[in-house]
């Protein structure tokens, strides 16, 4: 059975102009011990999705439909206290600005121990032992556990936050852009830790990022999101090698690859749609070079190809040549959004 199942989840934010449908019918699952990456541009709903799972949506946001099942149990209608028990014990998180998430007036050890005591009863010695293990796990010197956060560098603080997220041996860890604020070298070290953790402890991870290469390095499976919906989902290798959604192809082409200097950089013309009144049919229609009248009028069907789930009317065209053209700038010139700029 899957560890986490998100089933047709809808999250709305109430605003003066009507509800913003930030997450609109998203389904996917995470198996035990699996690292799943959620990829998309800002505003695609990936952070909202994480907030909904953690139960920390903004005041004006609410789950408007669907279920989030953890270990088979729907957590969307749990009471606040039940939910709290689940958090950190079973589901923990590495926040987006993890570098600044530590309290400057307590030592790192105190903060981790506090998190442990809040959920578990154990002796001080046991807790200290746990902190030592955690530090070793994330590659920090256990001798420095009594330092204050300001004595740590950014990368070390990030690792301390990872240690804290692991403190209660949760079965699922959510990491929201775990490396975005970091320099290349530190980013690399954190990515290495994340990959290593998967081998050392058997927890699952959900990694939210806009950075395709982070996903490529750490994840087994990838969910590509666009405008509040899943565009494509499947094993990382297949998503990178033979994707079927034009958006996935566009994202790939937009990322410079240090190993492929001659590759054209693709920009997907236009912007993601407003989510107050999203377009009917496919949400990617205005930016998609394959768009037809069908895309405008009807929602894209779920197409299963190889081991991918793709939501697109034109998966046949992808195989029929678009995949090889997608890395070409000119392939994106015929979209509605590109035409608008031309005019």
């Amino acid at each position: 059975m899957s560890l986490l199942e998100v089933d047709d989840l809808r999250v709305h934010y109430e605003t003066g102009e009507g509800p913003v449908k930030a997450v609109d019918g998203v389904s996917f699952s995470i198996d035990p011990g699996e690292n799943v990456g959620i990829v998309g541009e800002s505003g695609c709903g990936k952070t909202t999705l994480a907030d909904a799972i953690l139960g920390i949506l903004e005041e004006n946001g609410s789950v408007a439909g669907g279920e989030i099942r953890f270990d088979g149990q729907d957590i969307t209608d749990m009471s606040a206290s039940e939910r709290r028990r689940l958090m950190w014990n079973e589901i923990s998180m590495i926040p987006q600005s993890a570098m600044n998430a530590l309290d400057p007036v307590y030592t790192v050890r105190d903060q981790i121990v506090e998190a442990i005591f809040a959920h578990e009863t154990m002796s001080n010695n046991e807790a200290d032992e746990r902190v030592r293990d955690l530090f070793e796990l994330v590659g920090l010197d256990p001798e420095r556990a009594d330092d204050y956060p300001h004595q740590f560098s950014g990368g070390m603080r990030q690792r301390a936050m990872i240690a804290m997220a692991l403190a209660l041996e949760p079965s699922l860890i959510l990491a929201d852009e775990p490396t975005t604020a970091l320099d290349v070298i530190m980013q690399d070290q954190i990515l290495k830790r994340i990959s290593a953790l998967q081998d050392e402890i058997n927890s699952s991870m959900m990694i939210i990022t806009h950075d395709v290469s982070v996903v490529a390095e750490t994840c087994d499976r990838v969910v590509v999101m666009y405008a509040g919906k899943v565009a494509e989902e499947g094993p990382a290798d297949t998503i990178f090698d033979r994707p079927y959604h034009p958006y996935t192809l566009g994202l790939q082409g937009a990322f410079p690859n240090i190993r492929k200097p001659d590759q054209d950089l693709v920009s997907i013309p236009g912007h993601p749609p407003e989510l107050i009144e999203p377009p009917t049919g496919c949400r990617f229609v205005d930016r998609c070079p394959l768009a037809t009248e069908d895309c405008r009028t009807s929602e894209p069907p779920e197409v299963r190809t190889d081991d991918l789930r793709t939501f697109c009317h034109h998966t046949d065209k992808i195989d029929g040549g678009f995949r090889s053209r997608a890395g070409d700038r000119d392939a994106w010139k015929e979209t509605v959004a590109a035409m608008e700029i031309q005019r």
Partner: protein
Amino acid sequence: MSEQIEDGEPMLRVENLQKRFRVDDGIVNAITNRLRGDDPSYVHAVDGVSFDLQKGETLGLAGESGCGKTTTGMTLTKLYEPSGGSIRYEGRDITDLEGEDLQAFRRNVQMIFQDPFESLNPKRTIFDTLVEPLKIHDIGNQQKRVARALEFAGLTPPEQFFDQFPHELSGGQRQRVAIARALVLDPDFIVADEPVSMLDVSLRAGVLQLLERMNKEYNLSVVYISHDLSLLRHMCDKLAIMYLGRIVEYGRTEEIIESPKHPYTKALVNAVPVPDPTIKRTRVELAGEVGDAIEVPTGCRFKDRCDEHLGDVCDQVSPPLERKADITGDRLVGCHLFESAEGFDPEAELVKSRSGDGSPVAAESDD
């Protein structure tokens, strides 16, 4: 040094550029420190940087945060006054320009900043923002020029943007406006500080293409500042890898990325994540942190994190950035692991420093 790479005076020549910032602790502490006889402490943000920039060339300055790449860029545009060394532009020393001369230089250099939300004045319309440089330099045909610049930046029709305020535009559009502003004076070179790192992935390529077009079609020289080597590889002819205020390796981009020589460059290149799960990288894990820019270490600045540390030479003798006998191509490397092609003998320097007053050598190559 670098001037040996190409013949003839380049458009821009930077020699031994330095920028120190005084650690400011207010008037009272400054006075008490002076009474006590303490020297004020300085942050050595840029500490002896040299390179050339040819017309139409693109150079990438890469390194971790705190390596001095942004300070170098801001000193080039004269946002900071250099504390030492020289900047020559078209054969003229512009290091200490002031008044009218500085104003004339300013027509030729522009800067593009990282954050499109911060780089436009929220209280001014797009037209106001773009026309300002023209007003300052008293250039005619203002409206046509502004329209032309906006059009080039892909904001068409330009008239539609004239009266808009920055908050009415998207991030990508704002960055295009920032580029249009940089172009409106028709400069010779542009310093672009992380020009796309704040933009959404799908918009980045569009802005990068724009920068590429400026360079290719109008022979504009661009200095890119970024920590993202994948991006620099795409955009730059030459690359300068910086560490703690110095360039440690300089040369053609492909050569550096394909076969990095300096241990730091190796670590940096190998740390870049690759968007392809089938490629497995060889990781070089760097121990420790970037050193202290206030108490700059003696000898090589990278010595504490270096796997290939040679001992006393690295500890005591600062490696000059120079050609190496055992490295082919137009490459300058500042590391004792390679043999100098310019006759610099680190062992001799070490002996000299020992027999001398015993103070560590801060060697510079004298060429």
